[in-house]
């Protein structure tokens, strides 16, 4: 009965979403306040109903109710509880339910917290949000219904793909969807602005925090996915430019651009129309990611649904929402009032540069991801656009962006003084130069670009630190004064600093691990000692072990350096019971200098094994960097105050000012 209640609640949710789509927008058109208010109540009711459905499905998973087709296909009674729960979204139907749940959650949050929004804006926003719900609920109920039943119920389920039975991957989808779906709020606000034909001041005040929340969620989601790929796939890599990865990376890139342009809009009332376009594009890219992953266009771990009918439906959603919003944009954008004006060399100008570079980089990724697919669809030729393409296009775009990052926060609003900023960054420049020289003298051999890449990371880090140092008058005022200024700085200022610092730290990790990685594949007999990257590894053979739902062969390696034992690595190969699948678990020793990463290969004669050894220098910094970025986002989000950018007054009355757009 529980699952049937869940099923009915889901369907009723669709009915409520229909009401939420039609009535508030109708109300906003004819100016009826009561109808507009239905958006608020419907959004909350919709969330409650979908929550009931989600709980019902979770209960079915937890109790192993295989009378549900979806549970039977994706669960097994012997699975650990964590994976029974994460199994709910470890498949196409369940993950769609999570998708609409998060969608409804965000809609409900706008309804509850949006008291200070003008009622007509709020009605339109919730109406658009409701229409997205309608599309996905209809899709789910008709083609991907998680509540379809089996009678009689099979005794045992088929189990969750073991490669997904992993803590990092359990929480990867919720964060990822938090990001994708979070951008729907920015989208709904953008379309609402286009419908009403004006951009309320409350608009920017709202869009920035929501975008920031989505961006944080997506950042963590992507980082988890990459972290998982790193330790689970057993190739020592952390990013493969796989179309599925790109599908989540593109919304992240345009979301990052959106974040910055929304900032300009909130603080300076400028870049309004561009921000609206970017909001539409960002959510469209999220939808496209959903389409790529679920249409069967791609084959990968993520491609749960390889059903062309479903693909066609999602393509329809994508075309209607992106195409509709862009058409609306084309016809209504000129109605909107332009924003403020600013000089090219100003904080606004720097943020425009940021937006240009990021969106161009996003376009590069877009082409690299979609061109092979389009070519295959049209001519049937299969080409592979691998890392070389992305390194040649994405990489060069990141260099000027990273070089420019420290300048942005130093520039004054409206009109800035680039020479003055350069002076303030001199310390960071000196530190960077020293690090580059030191890196050249230490590395000696190896790729000549690597020290420059490291320098880039250091430049971003120290650039970010210099900004705070300058603002608190570090070394120029008494310590008392510095602390007083430090305390009075808004948290959002630290937020930006941490986010930029995180980028710098990540760049260090990326450069370090891609240019100095060391790799060796050896045939090792028990008792043999392998010398690798300064470590001595003694292979002590392989022993079988029994997990809750798998059997494994664990290799034992004792790692010593200079005769002292440092750690024991236990790379293993697992064979899961249901479904019968083999996975590898890498043995990883994490040190600051880098990770020692060992993968157990196939058995050879006389107990010998092939073992792959990797040393990944600085690789941890990649994820530490993303955590710092996340923390920066959190600081900024926790600062609920309004943002006002104080403009710099023109010294000469008639300074040339460029139009904003």
């Amino acid at each position: 009965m529980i699952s049937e209640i869940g099923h009915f609640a889901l369907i009723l949710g669709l009915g409520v979403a229909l009401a939420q789509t039609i009535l508030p927008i109708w109300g906003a058109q004819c100016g009826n306040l009561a109808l507009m208010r239905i958006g608020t109540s419907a959004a909350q009711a919709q969330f409650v109903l979908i929550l009931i459905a989600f709980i019902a499905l979770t209960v079915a998973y937890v109790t192993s109710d295989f009378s549900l087709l979806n549970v039977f296909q994706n669960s097994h009674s012997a699975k650990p509880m964590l994976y029974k729960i994460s199994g709910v979204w470890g498949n196409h139907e369940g993950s769609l339910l999570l998708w609409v749940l998060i969608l409804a959650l965000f809609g409900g949050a706008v309804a509850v917290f949006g008291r200070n929004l003008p009622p007509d804006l709020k009605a339109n926003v919730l109406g658009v949000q409701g229409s997205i719900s309608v599309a996905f609920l209809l899709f789910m109920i008709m083609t991907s219904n998680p509540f379809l039943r089996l009678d009689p119920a099979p005794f045992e389920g088929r189990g969750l793909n073991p490669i997904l039975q992993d803590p990092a991957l359990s929480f990867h989808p919720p964060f990822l969807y938090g990001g994708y779906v979070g951008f729907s709020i920015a989208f709904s606000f953008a379309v609402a602005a286009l419908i009403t034909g004006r951009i309320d001041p409350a608009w920017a005040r709202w869009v920035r925090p929501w975008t920031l929340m989505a961006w944080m969620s997506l950042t963590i989601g992507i980082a988890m996915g990459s972290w998982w790929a790193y330790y689970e796939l057993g190739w020592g890599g952390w990013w493969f430019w796989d179309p599925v990865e790109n599908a989540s990376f593109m919304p992240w890139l345009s979301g990052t651009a959106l974040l910055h342009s929304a900032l300009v809009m909130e603080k300076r009332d400028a870049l309004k129309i561009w921000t609206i376009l970017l909001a539409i594009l960002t959510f469209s890219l999220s939808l496209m990611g959903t389409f790529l992953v679920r249409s069967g266009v791609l084959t990968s771990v993520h491609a749960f649904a390889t059903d062309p009918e479903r693909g066609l439906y999602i393509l329809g959603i994508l075309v209607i929402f992106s195409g509709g919003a862009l058409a609306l944009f084309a016809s209504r954008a000129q109605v909107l009032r332009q924003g403020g004006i600013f000089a090219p060399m100003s904080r606004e100008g720097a943020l425009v540069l940021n937006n240009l570079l990021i969106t161009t980089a996003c376009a590069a990724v877009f082409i690299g991801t979609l061109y092979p697919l389009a070519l295959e669809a049209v001519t049937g030729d299969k080409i592979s656009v691998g890392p070389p393409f992305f390194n040649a296009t994405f990489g060069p775009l990141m260099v000027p962006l990273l070089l420019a990052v420290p300048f942005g926060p130093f520039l004054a609003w409206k009109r800035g003084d680039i020479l003055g900023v350069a002076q303030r960054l001199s310390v960071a420049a000196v530190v960077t130069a020293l690090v580059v020289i030191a890196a050249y003298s230490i590395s000696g051999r190896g790729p000549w670009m690597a020290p420059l890449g490291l320098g880039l990371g250091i430049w971003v880090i120290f650039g970010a630190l210099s900004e705070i140092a300058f603002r608190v008058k570090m070394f120029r005022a008494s310590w008392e004064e510095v602390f007083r200024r430090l305390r009075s700085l808004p948290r959002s200022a630290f937020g930006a600093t941490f986010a930029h610092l995180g980028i710098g730290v990540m760049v260090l990790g990326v450069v370090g691990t891609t240019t100095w990685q060391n790799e060796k594949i050896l045939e090792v007999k028990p008792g043999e000692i392998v010398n690798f990257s300064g470590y001595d590894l003694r292979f002590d053979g392989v022993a079988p072990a029994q997990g809750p739902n798998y059997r494994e062969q664990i290799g034992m390696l004792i790692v010593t350096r200079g005769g002292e034992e440092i750690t024991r690595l236990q790379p293993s190969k697992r064979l899961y019971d249901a479904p019968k699948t083999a996975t590898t678990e890498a043995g990883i020793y994490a040190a600051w200098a880098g990770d020692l990463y060992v993968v157990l290969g196939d058995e050879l004669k006389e107990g010998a094994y092939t073992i792959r050894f990797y040393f990944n220098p600085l690789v941890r910094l990649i994820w530490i960097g993303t955590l710092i970025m996340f923390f920066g986002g959190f600081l900024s989000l926790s600062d609920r105050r309004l943002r006002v950018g104080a403009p710099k007054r023109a010294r000469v009355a008639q300074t040339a000012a460029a139009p904003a757009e």
Partner: protein
Amino acid sequence: MVLWAIFAILTAAALTAVLWPILRTGEKDFDAAEYDAVVFKDQLSEVDAEEARGVISSSEAEAARTEVSRRLLAVAGTGDRAKSISANRPEGHAPALALVCAFVCVPLISGALYLTYGSPNLPDNPLAARLNPSTDDQKVGPLMARVEARLRQFPADGRGWEVLAPVYMRQQRFAEAADAFSNALRLLGETPERFANFGIATVLADEGVVSETARKALQNAIKGNPDLMEAQFWLVVAKEQDGSFKEAASDWRALLKRGSAEAPWRPMVEQRLAGLEQREGIAPAEEVAASPAGTVLKGPTGEDVAAAGEMNSTDRSAMIKQMVGRLAERLKDGGGEIEEWRRLVRSYSVLGDKQAARKALVSARQTFAEDPGALASLGKLADQLGL
């Protein structure tokens, strides 16, 4: 009935919650400009606060205040929006219409969709309920589940494996049966019966192909107990598969001689022998390969086989090649079942054309690239045939 009552309550509650703003009488007007002004006023007070804390200088604060004030004035100037909204409002009808529409449409749409996709008569069936079944035929599953759970915990319990294995056999889960028999063999000691069971399960798991592992086990079995007729049977099949048809035929005859007249396997062996004699030295890989689970495949027709019997050996092999060619042609165009592909690979292998067998294997793998089960069975086949 309870279920429908719950649905009704859920629907009524949801609709009331959604339509509450219409049912409730409240203020009917709003002034959007006021909302704008609130934002600007907030901004002004924020500028003051920042100035007070010394985050921005007083000249910066002054500039910001000027800007914000200018926007505030602009809003006040266009503050007629609310009036214009009130002006074009159709009095009264819209909410009532919405109310009726929602109360009719939402339950109607939900009800129709639920009746299409829902299963209102099906109770929940969680694991706990299935472990306490009400009918007899549901009892084997839970028992097995208990034994399986126990074995996961104590995998060295040989008795458990021995109990479980025949149940697997009955359920035609041959691979699991083979696994269980091999565990029993390892943990409880080697007996001819256990060897035989393991060998037979392995053969059935491989769909009738006697692999090297199976052959060794079966030989061990009859070494200890020559009366294990089923083991004997599969060993002769193995000889057929190896192409030692004369030996196989004489072994069949020996088996018939040894067995009593009523032995249940007699008709099967007789049939087998007859087929072999009729074909005399031709590799009828298809029959052996036919899946024991009962998948019926379109093999060579009776006429084909009869015709083959009357030909000399050159003609015969030409005809077989032709048959295989027909199968290959069909699979190339129409995709085909996994069993047909397996047969094609095996046929090439039996004809001695390893290269063609490998090619067929590659195409088969491409055809079933999406199906892990099929890929696994192709891999196994390749191992057996040494491709």
